[in-house]
């Protein structure tokens, strides 16, 4: 029987499947249905130095084969997460990836500083889709030099590995990925949601603008993973519309070492456990010794 175990930034994960940030609450909410230990790792909701309240409702809207959200990064703050929620993962020995953000370089730095260098903390996942309020709202994640600088700034204040999570709303994602790598990122998460909007012809207005996720995003995400794999020598976590084991395999073959599953969980709360067992079956059916070996095989 093949093994699902993968190595990510020096930590052994029991499988390459984790939730995408912001789509599994604080982790405990799923417990009535299945155990968090099922996952290769848990990715936190986006955390910030201080608590954030987020946006007004409506915050979610269904799209054909996807959804749009404008949660607005509501979270309890990094301190509260580590005092109230982190012990739950420690007790269950579940590796944690700490997704975080800021609206200024200082906020990124002070948030990162607060993350302890615990053996279960696999990495800091930097959400680079945030606007830099100090610099007139220009996003941190859209210009290569800005990405380089912010990653480097965080790199200097923490010994924890850094994964840069990129937005697809850029002119060349490979260039941004390279800038993150050169700034000191140890890994990449590709991709975050794509900006989108809804128009309601009955009420004749625009009820919601926000980030598009779900199956609709998959071909865009696959292309980002495929293109970055050869150009940037750090592990990639693939995300965007993964609904089943077949989708997960596509990302692994395109070059991902692990995958994050987000929106799928809303359509089927058992999506992740199913993907994990589906990957196991695939290994067996294909006489494959380990899932780690299929990373990037689509490149020939």
């Amino acid at each position, binding site marked *: 029987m093949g093994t699902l175990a993968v190595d990510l930034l020096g930590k052994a994960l029991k499988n390459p499947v984790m939730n995408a940030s*912001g*789509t*599994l*609450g604080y982790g405990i*909410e*799923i417990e*009535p*249905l299945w155990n968090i230990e099922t996952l290769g790792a848990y990715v936190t*909701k986006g955390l910030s130095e201080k*608590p954030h*309240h*987020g946006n007004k*409702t*409506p*915050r*979610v*809207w*269904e*799209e*054909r*084969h*996807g*959804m749009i*959200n404008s*949660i607005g990064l*509501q979270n*309890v703050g990094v301190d509260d997460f580590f005092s109230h929620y982190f012990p739950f993962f420690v007790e269950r020995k579940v590796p944690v990836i700490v997704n975080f953000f800021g609206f200024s370089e200082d906020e990124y730095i002070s948030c990162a500083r607060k993350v302890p260098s615990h053996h279960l903390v696999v990495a800091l996942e930097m959400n680079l889709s945030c606007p830099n309020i100090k610099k007139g709202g220009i996003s941190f994640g859209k210009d290569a030099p800005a990405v380089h600088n912010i990653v480097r700034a965080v790199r200097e204040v923490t010994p924890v590995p850094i994964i840069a999570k990129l937005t697809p709303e850029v002119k060349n994602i490979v260039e941004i990925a390279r800038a993150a790598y050169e700034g000191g990122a140890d890994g990449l998460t590709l991709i975050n949601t794509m900006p989108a909007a809804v128009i309601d012809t009955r009420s004749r207005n625009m009820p919601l603008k926000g980030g598009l996720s*779900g199956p609709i995003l998959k071909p865009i995400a696959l292309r980002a993973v495929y293109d970055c794999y050869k150009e940037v020598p750090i592990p990639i976590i693939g995300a965007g519309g993964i609904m089943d084991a077949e989708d997960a395999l596509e990302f692994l073959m395109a070059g991902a070492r692990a995958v994050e599953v987000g*929106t799928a*969980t*809303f*359509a*089927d*709360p*058992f999506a992740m456990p199913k993907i994990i067992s589906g990957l196991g079956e695939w290994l067996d059916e294909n006489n494959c010794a380990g899932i780690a070996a299929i990373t990037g095989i689509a490149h020939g």
Partner: protein
Amino acid sequence: MDDIPGTIRENSAVIPGYYRLTVRLERPLGEAVPGQFVMLKVPDREIFLRRPFSIYDARGTTVTVMYRVVGKGTEALSRAGKRAPVMVLGPLGRGFSVPPTGVCLVVAGGIGYAGVRMLLKRLGKRAVLFLGISGRTELPLLSDLKGIEVLTATLDGSHGYHGNVVSLLKEHLASYRSQGPTVFACGPRGMIVSLKGLLDADKVPCQVSVEERMACGLGLCFGCVAETKDEINPLKRVCKEGPVFDLWELSL
């Protein structure tokens, strides 16, 4: 809480646009508190997310909801035939909590009735239903409700009180004061807001069921928040900390 496969046993219009859907489940739905809801997977591949519906009735391996057709999800659901497969996730959220004593004034606006029907059944004689509907044609919605005192307000005056349900309650509220009333409400936002105006002076205990667009129904996405007066975390998840909230803790 569980995610249970089931098949549609009945899905028929009670009155045009309002359906009662009964699903036979593979295993029983866990013990439900009135006011809790389920997330239903509509048997149509074009409908991506599940839809939240209050538990109207649940017994053994069947669960019933009542819904109004308002958009593409409920529209697709109304087309689903007998034996169509569905998934039922629940029971979800925090339901009503009934005080040990006192009269229970239950205020329902339109399809809001579906959100209090299980509560009414539990309360029996302790309850008085104040129902707001647009006209007498909507009365059949109550056809399966027996043994409950009902006061009806119709907007067109075709039955009972002519006006909205909060005005109707206003006419009667004083007469219940001595019985230590608790108000339970489910209905459109406008109804809740005017209810708050009515009850404000005396701060009559009141629990309301709130609706918001949901993606997960499980507290995972923070898509469904309602604003409360909590100073640290004002935005509470309707699906997790709600859908029933203490009216006096909400910021409306």
